[in-house]
Structures are given as C-alpha cells and as structure tokens.
C-alpha cells in the first residue's frame, strides 16, 4: 500500500489547520504589540497624528516618581503573592496527597475560588475587612490586633490586594503541585520507609526534588500572570490614596485613558512586555529546544 501517503509526509498540508489560530493571534496580539512598539517612539494622543520623538517617552517615564512607585508596589505584591501561594499550594497538595476522606468534595472546595470573578472577590474581601463591621476586622479587634486600614494606609491596601490575589489563584498553583505530587511513584516512599527514613527526610530527599520542575513551572507562570495585576487593585483602591497603591498596569491605564499621554502609556506597555519576556526567558529557551527538537 505504498500509495497511501501519510499526512506527515507533506508538512505543508498541516498549515491550513493551524492558520486560523495563528491569524487570530496575529490580529489580536502580535500586530497590536508591534504597533505599541512603534507608538512608544512617538508622541501622540487620541485623534492626533503621531510625531517621532525617539526615546523621549521612555525617558519621561523613567524620570516619573509615580512610575517607580508603581513598579516598587508591583514587585512587592508579585513577590509576596507568588511565594506565599507556592508555600500554601505545596502545603495543601501534600496534605491532600496523603489520602483523605471525601477527597473529591474537599478538592472541589479548594478549587471554588477559581470560579470567582475578580469583582466578586473584591466584594468578598472588602466586606470581610470592612473597617466598621467586617468579620475579620471584628475578629482582629477581638484578639487585640490592629485591623487593616486598607483604604487609608497604602501598605495595608497592598496587603489586602495580595491576600485576595493569593485567594483567587491558589487553586491554579494547588492543581499543578497536586498533580505533580500524585505522579510520584508510591514505591519510592515505601523504600524510604523500609530504610527507616523519617517523614522529614522523605520530604527532603524524595518529594521536594521530584516536585521541583512543577514548582518552577508554577512559579514562572504565576510571576508572569501576577505581574499583569490590574483589576484587583483598580476595584479595591483605584490606586489611591494619592496614587500610592498604583501598580504598573494601573499606571499604564491612567496614563492612557485619564491623562491622555498615549506616548508614555505605550512606552510603559513595552517595558511591561520586555520584563515579561525576561521573566519568561528561561522557560521559553527550554521550550524552544524541546519544540524544535520534536520535528528533528
């Protein structure tokens, strides 16, 4: 049956199938992305024709204290959110991996925040931390703690943003780590137990090293996605008081849509793209090798 050509013998036949996906990404993400790059070297606002200004927009942002504050806030929140989330996710994954009654129901509970919108989450968390009647505020007062004054004290605002971000995204981190933990063969632990290893030793020598790739992947993805943080801050503090809780995405939005500085907004946008790519570099390099090795 030599006439029956395998589809893989003519790779060009596969192109029509992938074309719609590529066209969509090009139209909605690639072309706008490149256009942003071009715009970032021009001075423009809506309705005006752009004029070339070189790196002036970049110079302007880098000299703007509000940009630096936004960047600092973003770094603080991203570092806190991602690392706390990984620790919690790992903890819950290990707790669940040891076998539990009603496992399916319990997993459903842990996944529940995944279904909640950012707006919904903001409603929940600001209600719990309501300065007068919030459940958590009253609990904290009851324990003699000072409650969060998140609408007044900028750092408290950022803490609340971090808390609700962790809450929203823990399901993602949990699933990745839990699936990775379940794929570790049981006999490794049995062998360790026969050799008299303590729980801590088998965690250090088996669980942690074998989970490392999944931990790194989860961390990377969460860095990249946490960095985009917009809605939570916008809906909770709006970047205030006095622009003190702005993050980079809020800064970009305000520059573009409130202050009408399209040039600086696009420059901020490209700085975001560049930093995202730097964050993803290790992952992309590894992926590039794997994917291009696949067809060799």
């Amino acid at each position, binding site marked *: 049956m030599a006439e029956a050509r395998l589809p893989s013998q003519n790779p060009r036949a596969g192109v029509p199938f992938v074309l719609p996906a*590529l066209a969509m990404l090009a139209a909605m993400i690639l072309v706008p992305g490149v256009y942003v790059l071009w715009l970032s070297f021009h001075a423009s606002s809506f309705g005006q024709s752009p004029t070339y200004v070189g790196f002036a927009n970049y110079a302007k942002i880098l000299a703007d204290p509000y940009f630096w504050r936004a960047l600092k806030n973003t770094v603080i929140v991203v570092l806190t959110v991602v690392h706390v989330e990984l620790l919690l996710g790992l903890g819950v994954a290990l707790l669940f991996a*040891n076998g539990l009654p009603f496992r399916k129901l319990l997993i459903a509970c842990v996944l529940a925040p995944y279904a909640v919108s950012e707006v919904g989450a903001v409603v929940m968390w600001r209600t719990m931390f309501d300065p007068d009647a919030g459940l958590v505020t009253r609990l904290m007062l009851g324990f003699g703690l000072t409650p969060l004054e998140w609408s007044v004290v900028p750092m408290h605002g950022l803490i609340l943003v971090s808390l609700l971000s962790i809450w929203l995204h823990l399901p993602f981190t949990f699933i990745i780590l839990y699936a990775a933990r379940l794929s570790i063969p049981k006999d490794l632990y049995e062998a360790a137990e026969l050799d008299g290893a303590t729980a801590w030793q088998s965690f250090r020598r088996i669980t942690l090293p074998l989970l490392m790739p999944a931990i790194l992947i989860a961390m990377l993805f969460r860095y990249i996605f946490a960095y985009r943080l917009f809605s939570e801050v916008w809906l909770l503090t709006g970047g205030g008081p006095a622009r003190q809780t702005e993050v980079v995405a809020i800064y970009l939005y305000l520059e573009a849509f409130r202050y009408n500085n399209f040039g600086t907004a696009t420059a901020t946008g490209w700085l975001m793209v560049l930093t995202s*790519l730097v964050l993803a570099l290790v992952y992309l390099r590894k992926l590039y090798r794997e994917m291009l090795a696949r067809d060799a």
Partner: protein
Amino acid sequence: MTPDTVLVLKRRLAQLGRGLALALVLIWSVGPITMIVVAAFTPEKEIFSVTKSAGWQPTLENFVMLWAKWGDFFTGLLNSLIVTLGATLLAVVVSTLAGFGYSRWQSRLLASSAFSMIALRLLPPIVTTLPLFPIVNAFGLNDTYLVLILLYAAFFVSMGTMVMRTFIDQIPRELDEAAMVDGATSLQILRRVILPLCGQGMIAVAIFVIVYAWNEFLFAFIFTTKFAKTAPLVMSEMVGSLDGVEWGVVFAATTVQLLPVLIFVVLCQRHLIEGLTAGATKG
C-alpha cells in the same frame, strides 16, 4: 509512659494537626464565598449590624431589589452569556483545528509557529488594549460582542491548542492511516476519526474559556460602555456607585453571577485538572 502510649499520643497529635490544617484550608477557600451568599439572603439592615439578632431569617428582599433597581445587571448577565458562548465556540474550534495540525504534521516552520503562539500568550493583555482601542473605534466595533469574543478567544487559543495537541497526540495514528487507505482526506480524518475521540480535550479547553470569559473585567471595562456591558462590569458600577452602595443588592448580584459558574467548575473538576496538566503548563 510506655513507648506504646507515646506512639499512640504522637499519632493522635498528628491526626489532630491534620484535621486542624484541613479546617483552616476549608475556611480559607469557602469562607468568603459562604459569607457573601449568606449575606445576600440577609435583610440589608442586619448585614452590617454588630449585634446580630438571634435567629437568621433568610429573605429574598435583596434579590427583589436587584431585579427592581438594576435591570442593567440582568442585561449584563445576558451579554456575558452571549460573549462567553461565542468566545468558547470560537476558541474550541480554532484550537481543535490547530491542535490537529500540530499533532499530525511536523516541520521546522510549524514548530516555530507553535513556539511563537506560546510566546505571544505571555504578553500582558493590557498592552494590547492601547493600540486596539483606536482600531476598534475606527471599525465601529467598540461596545460590541464581537470585540470581546475575539479578544477572549485570542488569549486562550495558544493554551487551547497545546491542550488539544496533547489530547490528539494520544489518538493512535494507525486510525488515521486506516482512514487514509480508504481514501479519506485530512478534513474527513479530522471529522470521522479525531473529533469523536478528543471530546475530553475540547471540554477541558471549553472550561478554561468559559470561566475566563464569564468573569473577565479588564477588556470589558475598556471596550464596552453601554450595550455590550458584561455582568462583572455592572457589578463594579454597583460597588463604585457614588450615591451610597447598597451592599445587600451587591451581595445578591455577586451570588447570582457566581453560582452558575461555581456549580459548573465543581461538576467539571476532573476535566479542569486534566486540562491543566495536559497543556497549560507545557505551553
């Protein structure tokens, strides 16, 4: 104490610790949701009163108020539904086609295009809103379903494609070859061989797009103003309302918007986990 009692004590303690940890995990995950749902069924006056009245009398008054005062919210729900269905359909179809393409044909060109799909997905969405805003206006697409459908689908096509490729890779090629011997074209192979066997993958992709499109805020905030406003956007307007926020109504709206997708996620938990492990983290 004998060594035996020490051992029993230790085991009890470990059990207690695990029970406590589990309780904390549950309170953390479900507590905020439960609180809002309960508050939605509580009379507005009592929600924030520090001294709780003795018995909790569930009431529908917040939902009635929501219906009477915020017709916008229900239009928003309908808009969300239309946009979600549109984006899901588009993303699943396009991802399945591309997943089939990448699974069954290999070349340097294809591999590098798959790679650039993944790299593109890493761009922050807010960056693309800047140039899209004037373009969308120029095409008169502002405040339409179409712009949201295209954006939501575009941001999930890369992940969807990788999930579909992983699932289609598992379908034996011998089946393709057998169909080919019978003279089937690639499109016929896709329809008769692949489609009936890759439903799991399509469900997984659909779940991600549905949850995302139903809840999305940023794009809806920037690209819709009146007619195509989605439910989360209307909710944000309720919370940001200048003349006093009626929290009871906000809680009712939050509950109505949340419950369908929450039930959906709980029912589809197996597919969600499979999907995430199949493609989300590979690319």
